[in-house]
């Protein structure tokens, strides 16, 4: 039933035609971000990957590999010095961030970007772009979110700044899914969450995927990634060094340790 509700919101034909191709040539890292790191400034990067419609693409890699930079570049918060970002056949490389959001991209930054002086309710109201007041928000969808993250209902009128770290993360994800979007960019949603909540989040993402949402997720937690990912891209030093199916990577431990390093053991 839920599946029906969610997919009814979206023009289906568009989804069938939609193919997201993200292609960066020379994703030069913003020098102002890492002024000290010469290697990142100098090297010309090549990053090519494709995220398929209604699929889950995991972006893995060590710290500093360029995962967050990739998401921010797609969102238009930073601009690629070369190359193009294509969404649904449309070049969005030079588009300003709000326009990219209007093309159907939602972003959950690693910092979560919660407006802490605003209540949970007000945070959600802003995220629901089409809604002038709360009454305009699709209640079925809201109930669905409350079902996934009961804390959102419980703390509905509380200032978002008073939420715990995990609750803030739930709010950040809830904001991104309050209206149907084509593509979700999510940066490390499992960080700092209790295992039970992680399961809720996995469930939420599964239902979104079933509703034809494309999700590009940056993750350090390999277990989390393994449970959700269809395809995976592993980045190192600003390049995609491996891409393929998640199942393949999950089965091949030697490949994992070569690509992701020893730190992986700590997550398992």
């Amino acid at each position, binding site marked *: 039933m839920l599946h029906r509700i969610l997919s009814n919101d979206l023009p289906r034909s568009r989804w069938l035609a939609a193919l997201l191709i993200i292609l960066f040539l020379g994703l030069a890292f913003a020098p102002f971000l890492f002024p000290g790191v010469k290697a990142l400034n100098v090297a010309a990067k090549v990053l090519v990957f494709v995220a398929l419609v209604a699929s889950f693409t995991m972006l893995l890699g060590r710290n500093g590999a360029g995962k967050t930079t990739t998401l921010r570049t797609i969102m238009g*918060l930073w601009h690629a010095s070369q190359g193009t970002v294509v969404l649904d056949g449309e070049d969005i490389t030079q588009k300003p*961030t*709000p326009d990219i*959001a209007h093309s159907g991209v939602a972003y959950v930054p690693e910092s979560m970007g919660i*407006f*802490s002086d605003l*209540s949970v309710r007000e945070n959600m109201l802003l995220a629901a*772009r089409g809604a002038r007041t709360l009454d305009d928000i699709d209640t079925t969808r809201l109930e669905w979110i409350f079902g996934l993250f009961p804390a959102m209902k419980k703390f509905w009128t509380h200032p978002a700044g*008073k939420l715990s770290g995990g609750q803030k993360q739930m709010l950040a994800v809830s904001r991104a899914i309050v209206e149907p979007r084509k593509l979700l960019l999510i940066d490390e949603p499992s960080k700092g969450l209790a295992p039970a909540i992680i399961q809720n989040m996995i469930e939420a993402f599964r239902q979104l995927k079933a509703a034809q949402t494309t999700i590009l997720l940056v993750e350090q937690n390999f277990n989390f990634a393994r449970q959700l990912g269809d395809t995976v891209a592993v980045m190192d030093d600003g390049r995609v060094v491996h891409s393929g199916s998640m199942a393949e990577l999950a089965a091949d431990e030697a490949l994992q340790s070569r690509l992701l390093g020893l730190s992986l053991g700590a997550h398992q």
Partner: protein
Amino acid sequence: MSLFKDLDWKPMALVPVLALAALPAIGSPSTWLTLTVAGLAMGMIVFIIASGLTLVFGLMDVLNFGHGVFIALGAFVATTVLASMGSYTTADSLWLNLLALLPAMLVAMAVAGALGLVFERLIIRPVYGMHLKQILITMGGMIIGEELIKVIWGPEQIPLPLPEALRGAVLMGDAAVEKYRLLAVLVGAAVFAAMVWTLNRTKVGLLIRAGVQDREMVESLGYRIRRLFVGVFVAGSALAGLGGVMWGLYQQSVIPQMGAQVNVLIFIVIIIGGLGSTLGALIGALLVGLMANYTGFLVPKVALFSNIALMVAILLWRPQGVYPVTNR
């Protein structure tokens, strides 16, 4: 209203604490009442002027030292409008007087707002994100504005007499409280109420509050923060124009340099308030207004210094102002 929930009440208590602390120092309750009302009136006027500036800074990190030009412009426009409505201002009827004041205020706001639009486009837009350049160029903008005012209205001080029915004082017990000061408190309270309502109850208001905390996220949610900023800048300029009219009437005269004079006060106010907080700006403005009046009466020689001392004391207590904006 989330603004009033989980209230951090200590800064709010500062205003009555300051007022009560001044009572024994002044001695006579009637003098104290007169000074307090004068201080609150001045504070409210300063708040009207500063409220726009604090949002402009909070929203776009823009230091606009040219805010004073809108004050002066508003006041000069009001002199012209009031002069053209001579019979209304001299009539001994409160309603006729208010009928003259209201258009003067509205025209002053419209002209200051329109100048704000031009100012933002020509002067602020090229220097986004560059504080030093902002300070230099907005100062320059203010000097040019001041000179243009001299070109139009002349360099002399122009009297801005109060309308007939607002002159004089009402007696409250032994204390004489000037009528105009009561009006100023009322207008200030109305502006504050309107702002609180807008910021809490409308989507634009929510966006402004959200933008003060995290610009990037507001853009990521699909809102054009530049457009929001232009709106806030124009509204802030219009409010400065209104504040200029009120200030001119408070002083009963206007000079082209009045903007630069008030500038110092309003920067003290928004720094006390926490750079971006409306409630903080209100508290800062009331504290500055009261302090200026009390010290002006008790020890006139330190009156100029007292507001700086007040700011220093508050920053020692809360280094980011009484209501620091989070997430920044």
